[in-house]
């Protein structure tokens, strides 16, 4: 999952001309990686096309991931 997400971030960063970090770690802070709110919205929409689910619409208690590790965990938790 992590590799897939990092690959999609790379693809959309290239398409939209965003400068994002190359060296993604579990504890990379998302808002310090070069993605902004719009970047995340596009990433989540693109992942929904790819994975056919948006975990952020499926949660009872909302989670706001701070790091890549937390973001990946959200997708893992809701993978069918």
């Amino acid at each position, binding site marked *: 999952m992590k590799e897939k997400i990092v690959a999609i971030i790379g693809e959309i960063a290239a398409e939209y001309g965003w400068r994002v970090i190359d060296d993604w770690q579990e504890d990379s802070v998302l*808002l310090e990686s070069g993605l902004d*709110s*719009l970047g995340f*919205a596009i990433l989540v929409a*693109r992942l929904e096309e790819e994975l056919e689910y948006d975990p*952020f619409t499926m*949660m009872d208690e909302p989670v706001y991931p701070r790091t890549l590790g937390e973001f990946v965990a959200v997708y893992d938790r809701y993978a069918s």
Partner: protein
Amino acid sequence: MKAEALSSIIGGFAGGQTVVSSVGARLTVGQLLEHADELFRRSLVTSGSRIALCGLAACDLITSLTAFDGRVGAMLLLPAFADSAARDRFLAAAGCTHRMDGDGIRVLPNRLEEGCSSDADATQWLLPTSGTTGVPKLIGHTLLSLTRTVKRDVAKGRGFIWGLLYDPCRFAGLQVILQALLSGSLLSVSPSYDFDRQVEGLIAGGVNALSATPTLWRKLLMDGRIRECPLRQITLGGEIADQSLLNGLKHCFPAARIVHIYASTEAGVGFSVHDGMAGFPAAWLESERAPVPMMVRGDGHLLVRPATVPEGAETAGRLDADGYLDTEDLVRVAGDRVFFSGRASGAVNVGGNKVMPEYVEEHIRRVDGVFDVCVYGKRSSMMGQIVAADIVCESGVDSAELRREILRYCRSVMESWQVPGIISFVSELHENAAGKRERKT
């Protein structure tokens, strides 16, 4: 009778009370009134003057509003425009005689003050709005129409320190400023629009009341540092507030009063909901208990009857015989709740920024290889909506290459939030029974 001016409201507070703070600097009521008086005297304006306030920082804007409200004919509030042609169009449309920016105030050439006096009993506050068609228009307010629903409970207000995350010259920012000023609260402003520095400023300023769009609240929660602010008042506006975010905020700030505001620049102020639930109670429709009289028209448009109707042809055309204003917001009633479902015009709301699909379509059609295109808003759990485009390409065109070209072109001519976040290639687009392009929702 002359309406009460901002300076006289502020003059009612103790002179030593702090009104605005910003990284160590503080401005008291006494200093604000003194600076405002000095600015007024230096400006040589008359009651017929029409002053454009262009891209002012919060402190300068507050001083200018205090200086000129009640003393000039009109004030035009403009955010810091990148596009000077748009700014000049607004200046001409508003008949501005003076222009004030960070460098000071100056008289505009070739603009005569008609009659040099104004019969109006209140200064007009002119605000640009993207309007129903996406073409910016000016809407005329007064201090009274802008603050009709502002709480003026000074005993309560004194305990609040409001943070300002919005551009002070836009409607949402102005609402925060006026709320803080009129209720005797302290306003903490950041000298920077950089998110990191803004958050640092909120924490350093001890902010306990904050207004932001749902998109910005999600960002603040992701960042996490906002938890260091002892928030007691949380306000959401500018976009539809969903239940998930309201729950998330309640979870982080269990003691805070959470309010989502429904407001439109056109209608003045609408109403606020503070029961922690998305939408608003259906009992408010055609009910005495409603904060403003409202009803849902047969086609799902929400109509409100504002106490003061803003001036301008734009609003006049949207009033019915009973004084109800078409908000052009679509709602649906589900059980005892009314939920917002978007704009009747099809405008896409990307984190509080309005995008007209037709504008994006017109641009995409210019890209070689595009046969047809349909742009619409795709629901986003992060930003409310993002722009999506369905493309029919000409035969023999490589869709991957076309996709890159569309994005490259859109990025070169549009704001980032207008550029499609999702592009799909389809074999055909559909029209509805009336022959109109069917936009997905």
